């Protein structure tokens, strides 16, 4: 009996939940790996990073729905912060705020826009929401100084740019995944 089978058997209280658990685990592992790789890269501006881990959240949302995307994002924020060493620090709070804001915006845009909105639009909206949420918390809790507000246009521009790039990456990956699914039905 292999380990995978054991895990599947153990976590099988309802139909399909075992499959969902494995999907969440796999996607979360990918997102965490990207999260940590990104944390290792130097950033030109404090608080600005590409946020490529959100590509995973976006792909999960579009392929498997909001519930799994929430799980993957929660795992990424929690485990990612444990591994980088920022758990319960201000960085962690900012990271969690960003994730909550981004997912709320993602869910709202997905519900309103439906099929008319693709990965790029969703990514841009969630990226801007991510940044806005973080700025709000940073301003209210950590740096209540007007100078922080002077950074807002720069930070939002970065969010727009990286959101578009992440969205294009997600769209490409989804296109490739879609093709493979067609070939092996």
């Amino acid at each position, binding site marked *: 009996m292999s380990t995978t089978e054991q895990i599947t058997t153990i976590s099988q209280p309802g139909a399909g939940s075992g499959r969902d658990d494995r999907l969440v685990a796999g996607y979360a592992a990918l997102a965490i790996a990207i999260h940590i790789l990104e944390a290792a890269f130097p950033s030109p501006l404090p608080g600005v990073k590409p946020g490529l881990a959100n590509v995973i959240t976006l792909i999960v949302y579009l392929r498997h729905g909001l519930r799994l995307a929430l799980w993957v994002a929660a795992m990424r924020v929690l485990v990612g912060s444990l591994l980088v060493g920022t758990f319960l620090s201000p960085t962690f709070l900012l990271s969690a705020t960003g994730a909550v804001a981004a997912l709320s915006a993602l*869910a709202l845009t997905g519900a309103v826009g439906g099929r008319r909105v693709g990965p790029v639009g969703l990514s841009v909206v969630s990226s801007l929401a991510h940044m806005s949420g973080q700025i709000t918390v940073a301003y209210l809790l950590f740096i209540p100084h007007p100078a922080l507000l002077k950074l807002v246009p720069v930070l939002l521009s970065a969010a727009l740019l990286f959101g578009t790039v992440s969205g294009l990456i997600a769209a490409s990956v989804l296109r490739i995944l879609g093709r493979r699914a067609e070939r092996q039905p």
Partner: protein
Amino acid sequence: MADAGSKAGSDNPAPARALIRGGDILILLLAAGLVGASFGAFWGPRSEGHQVLVTVDRNQTTELSLHQDGTFEIEGRIGVSTIMVDGGRVRFMDSPCPGRYCVHSGWLRLSGEVAACLPNGVVVEVLGGEREFDAINL
């Protein structure tokens, strides 16, 4: 909501082929407008001033309220500069300098605006915003 999300992706493979859809372009335009507006909002014009700081010869300073109209004669290094406060704004009316750059600076209204008559050593600066607001009460 979860169903709506999965439908958007998997049930409809044809539009998924296009990297950018119609709604995406709309969102990109709106987002670009929002970011542009944020430049205007956070880097835009400063708030209106409430006081005016008059400095003579670098060390003598007087503060006037921008809300009390009047004409003030300031003794400078080479003569008398005339400053006028009128309805929340201030300007040099006259100054004994050759170029009259200070006079040509016109009305100052926004916090941080400065006009200077360097030959006469008179500098007029608008103060205001919330930081300076409770510092003086004229």
